[in-house]
């Protein structure tokens, strides 16, 4: 039988790269990404699962990384904002946020890019309502969302072209 322990050894693949690490069982995944792997693109906003700034994609599931313990991600493939454009070429989502002014302070942007990327993989041609529902878990305190919704619609159109 497996033993319960306050320390766990985990193996995760982050943006295609394997990492093996020993973590405290209580460590949140967001802290593991930021502090152990030094990937600071995944932001901490509220730390209570409300704001979505820490959103990543884990085995195809959109996830707030502050709502998951690092050991829960053992064996998983994790995509973070750092892996979205590996060769430095912006993706259509990133291009669109740039061109449509989909950010102001930028704090929420990594989470929103992950949520938008997730949406467009599932639904390449979303309606405005579908876009708004897809970013329901991501809070932006600057833009009022209008340009964010426009950015995602524009990214969808760009990918279709």
């Amino acid at each position, binding site marked *: 039988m497996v033993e319960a322990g306050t320390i766990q050894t985990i193996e995760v693949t982050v943006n295609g790269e394997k990492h093996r690490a020993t973590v*405290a069982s209580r460590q949140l995944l967001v802290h593991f990404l930021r502090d152990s792997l030094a990937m600071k693109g995944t932001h901490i906003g509220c730390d209570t699962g409300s704001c979505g700034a820490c959103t990543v994609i884990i085995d195809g*599931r959109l996830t707030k990384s502050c709502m*998951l313990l690092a050991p829960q991600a053992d064996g998983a493939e994790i995509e973070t904002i750092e892996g979205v454009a590996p060769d430095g070429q912006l993706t259509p989502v990133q291009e669109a946020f740039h061109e449509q002014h989909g950010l102001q302070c930028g704090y929420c942007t990594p989470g929103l890019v992950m949520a938008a990327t997730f949406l467009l993989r599932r639904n390449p041609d979303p309606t405005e309502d579908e876009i708004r529902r897809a970013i329901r*878990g991501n809070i932006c305190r600057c833009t009022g969302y209008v340009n964010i919704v426009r950015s995602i619609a524009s990214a969808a159109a760009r990918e279709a072209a």
Partner: protein
Amino acid sequence: MLLESVAYARPESLAEALQLLGSSDSAAPLAGGQSLVNVLKHRVAQVEVLVDISRLDELRGIEVSSDGALEIGACVTYDELDRSEPVRSSQPLLAHVAGHIEDQQIRCRGTIGGNCCLSDPTNNLPPLVVALDATMVIESSSGAREVPARDFFHGYFATAVGEGELLRSIRIPSLGSGTGAGYSSVAVGADSKAIARAAAVVRANGSIEEARVVLACVSPAPLRHAGMEEALRGSQPTAEAVSDAAQRIGDDLEPLGDVHGSAEYRREMARVVARRAVLQAIATGGGQRG
């Protein structure tokens, strides 16, 4: 945020999970964690061992039996319910409700079993599984037992699941002909915390033959409203008759008031959502008149 030190284990079978849960007085099952992780952050519960049940095959399936009933594993996520073909075709309302819980991130993690076992009176699924006359299958080391959903919810954060037990699956019978289901909420914002909810299942054939009306957010556990059900039975499936029946909801309800709504407002909204849920049930069951 730093949680209190906690041990973690990910068992590979249901039997092993039950053994681990029995090994400590303060062991807790961890499924999607979308409520529990916050509970741990706020240190409002004493948990020493987290038993991660989220990957157990025994809890992850959706099966359809020959009579059309669905058997849904406790760790099936809201997102999986929303996207499951068998759920969409036989219980479209369940798929819809699951697809409108909070946000995409929560739907990718939160589970049907967690939503029921937490038994927060504002949770989306408890009133629905009661209205759908589901059976909750509870597993322990001595075997499985079955509890009707209407007897499962005992009150605030309390259910029929006892120490050393786990909810294994939820069995939902098919609706049958002439029968429809409805669901309505008044919430703080779109897809968010509710002030009042109702779920209803109505069988009609010219007139209403049977109705189950379940209210939530107005009592410690989902509440079948016998008065409204009785008033509906035998009446015409019309908007007027349903409206009249909803008037049976009254001073018998003693909801708590809070920052989102006073007790009086919740009682009034309970009438509104009950009426809407019953009308939707009538419409989807094909028995609508005038």
